[in-house]
């Protein structure tokens, strides 16, 4: 078990390294291969009347004139030992882990990521609870009552949930429930959990439901098909023959076997969302990691993009590791080695 964990952690660190190198290369190496000079890259970050002298001075300040490997080395070094930044009036120390300074706002990236993390975590976890409960329950009931009215309605809703994009359902929900009926707060509303738990939940209810609607649909369909297959297995018949209650047959034997693939998908989905629910956050104007990423990409703000990519990768790796560990709990046949 310990060996397994060490191996996975080493693998995760290596993956983070590869991801950071690839992201760095996409933003810096690829344009340089395409013929862009250091000054061309710097000209993205100056006002429209800036002359070549001013652009070059900024290129030097941002380090674009240094070899690419040196630039990457500086970035990586900042993560482990911190970095320094000239604010004009003073030299500011950016402690480790320093993901660099934004090319646009000239503020350190890491504190901004930390600041936005609670929004994304709140959104992702809240929605996850809803979609797992709704999706799995609907899938199980649909499977047990195959062909019933419930099954048909649930699967139709599930199809709609998968098909309708969040920017549509989100804007529609806001328009109806916030601006017409006035039941929920307008877009951009967020109260920290520690400040007021009730208001936190109230502000996030619409985003949770919107996001959960999308995911619950997939989980319902996945659970239904898994349950249908499992409930036809021989060991289910054996369990029934042994005189177990239907509840025990369904929950202990049927659902448990169905949960393995669902857990795999759940780990991936939750990991992805913890790295930023881009569309939900953008639609509801929630200042989480996903919105941060979109705003950074729009403005070619590489340090921010790198920061988000690494955080997202970290969460995906972590979520997958947890899921792999849970396999052993859910399915006794799995042994970690």
């Amino acid at each position: 078990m310990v060996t397994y964990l060490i191996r996975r952690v080493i693998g995760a660190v290596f993956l983070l390294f590869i991801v950071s190198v690839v992201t760095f290369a996409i933003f810096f190496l690829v344009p340089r291969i395409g013929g862009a000079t250091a000054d061309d890259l710097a000209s993205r970050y100056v006002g429209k009347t800036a002359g070549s002298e001013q652009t070059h001075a900024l290129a030097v300040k941002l380090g674009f004139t240094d070899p690419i490997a040196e630039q990457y080395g500086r970035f990586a070094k900042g993560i482990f030992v911190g970095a320094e930044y000239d604010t004009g009036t003073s030299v500011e120390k950016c402690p480790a882990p320093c993901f660099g300074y934004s090319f646009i706002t000239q503020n350190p990236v890491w504190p901004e990521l930390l600041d936005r993390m609670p929004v994304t975590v709140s959104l992702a976890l809240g929605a996850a609870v809803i979609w797992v409960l709704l999706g799995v329950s609907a899938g199980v009931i649909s499977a047990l009552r195959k062909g019933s009215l419930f099954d048909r309605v649930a699967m139709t809703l599930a199809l709609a949930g998968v098909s309708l994009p969040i920017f549509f359902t989100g804007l529609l929900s806001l328009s109806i429930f916030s601006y017409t009926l006035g039941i929920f707060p307008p877009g951009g509303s967020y109260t920290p959990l520690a400040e007021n738990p009730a208001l936190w939940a109230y502000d996030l209810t619409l985003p949770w439901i919107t996001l959960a609607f999308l995911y619950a649909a997939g989980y319902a369909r996945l659970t239904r098909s898994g349950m249908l297959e499992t409930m036809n297995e021989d060991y289910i018949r054996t369990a029934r023959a042994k005189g177990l209650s239907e509840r025990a047959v369904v929950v202990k034997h049927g659902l448990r076997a169905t949960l393995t693939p669902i857990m795999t998908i759940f780990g991936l989905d939750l990991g992805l969302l913890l790295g930023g629910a881009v569309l939900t956050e953008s639609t509801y104007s929630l200042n989480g990691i996903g919105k941060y990423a979109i705003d950074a990409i729009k403005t070619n703000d590489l340090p921010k993009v790198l920061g988000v990519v690494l955080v997202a990768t970290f969460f995906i790796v972590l979520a997958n590791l947890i899921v792999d560990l849970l396999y052993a709990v859910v399915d006794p046949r799995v042994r970690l080695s």
Partner: protein
Amino acid sequence: MTRQRTAAAVAGAAVLALALGACGGGSGNSGGSSGGGAKAVADAGIGKVFNPSTDKGGTIKIADSGDWDSLDPADTYYGYSWDFVRLYGRSLVMFAPKPGAEGTKLVPDLAESLGVSSNGSKTWTYKLRKGVKFDDGTPVTSKDVKYAVERSLDKTTFPNGPTYFNDYLDLQGYTSPYKDPSPDKLGLKAIETPDDSTIIFKLAKPFVGFDYFAQLPATIPVPQAKDTGTKYKEKVVATGPYKFGTYELGKKFTLVRNENWDPATDPNRPALPDTIEVQLNVNADDMDNRLISGDLDIAVEGTGVQLAAQSRVLANPDLKARSDLAPSPRTWMTFVNGDVPPLNKIECRRAIQYAANKAGYQKAYGGKTGGDIATNLQPPMIPGATPFNLYPAGPDNTGDLAKAKEQLAACGQPNGFATSISYRAERPREKEVATSLQESLGRVGIKLTVKPYPAGDYFKLYAGKPAFAKANGLGMMVYGWQADWPDGFGFLSQIVDSRVIREAGNTNLSVKDPAVDAAIDTALAEPDATKRNALWNEVDKKVMESGFVLPGVWSKALFLRSKRLTNVFVTDGYGMYEYVALGVQK
């Protein structure tokens, strides 16, 4: 994240469906009366004040679909930021907060009067008003203004702002107060402060329009002791009627009353609301919904409602009554590149002018709501600009094909020629322009290959980089330009003067004509504003004669007033609502 990105591909269609379908408009709380004394009427805020009021108090709710480039006056170049900054900062002069064309006139702000020039317009002197203070109660002196301009010169610390002071002051090698060895950090010789209320600017070359530089946010005073360089934007020391209450970077900020602002020193600002709340990075379509419902008062970018909301506003009489279709100081246009043969020949460029379907160009920008068909560069809202048309496009504005063929024959290409047209990939309207021109020019044998490039790097790496444009045969480049300020220099200098063209990041994509440069110099030497304006028309004519630019549309924007706002009007100074004048019903 991947799933969401995939879904983004159909975003536009769904948002449009939302607007046309489910949201309907005209619901109980989207109605039309102002709620105040005035009855809401379409365009009531254009050329006049809608719902005038002197009532103070209340909170104005503002939202931004993005974020400021910077709230630091030295580091900002967004038009709406220049309008908004006057709520918390006072520059030497400012655009008069008056409706319509009156808003293009400069009036003294921190200074007692407009600048006094001497030495052939190379020296400009301003006297500061007495009694102006920072929000901490410290009196403002001319040294604070000098320090503010000095720090704005440092483009490695403040890269966003304009470079007019860098380009015109007699710097003698001065780069930044942060590298200034003099003890008081006021070593710039190009600005003198003989006493606490006098400031003298010395230019390297004459410039008759220096008052336009004096209205730039860079002349808003900064107390050296409180300057924190790149961090100053988080705690700007105010001189206007409002100071910063709270500021959460990238999320929101509030302005509250500055108790050290003395209205006796400020004839321009009524300072009506008690508080101004600004929410940043708000979904643009959601912002329109909130404007319509009354949850929001102003969309601060000043570019008008989104396409999805436009049709909804225009179709609903109540909403339309709350709208203002205002001209912007912006022209949508297409540059014609003389570096790409056969467009090095003037007749070939003129063939494009005649063959283009201007009605198609206008349609791409949403028809009349998007703006009027442009026949020359300067929008009519620029003071003194007189529209003219050297290339009549026929009664229905679809082009004069006979004239186009004449020009093609004269340039030695009677059967037409092939070239490429570029546009910004993320801008569907520019794509529509490119395909419309592809179709209309194709009628006379000019075959266009359409090439999209990323908007973020359009000027830095592609169309705005002459070597790239030439190597890739970009004979035409779709474009749009908004004046830095509403006069001929502000509109034309950066897009038609060949001497501003550099290796990359250009705003003048192709106009290289000595006759145009000479006409610019003549205009710049004219001290009389009325005569100068006429000379800028001459510059415009020279460009049109050379055929280097195909003007498309003089832009308009559809604004929506919230029902609570008072004292609302569009100023031609910025082509958007005048933020300094706004009030709100409590």
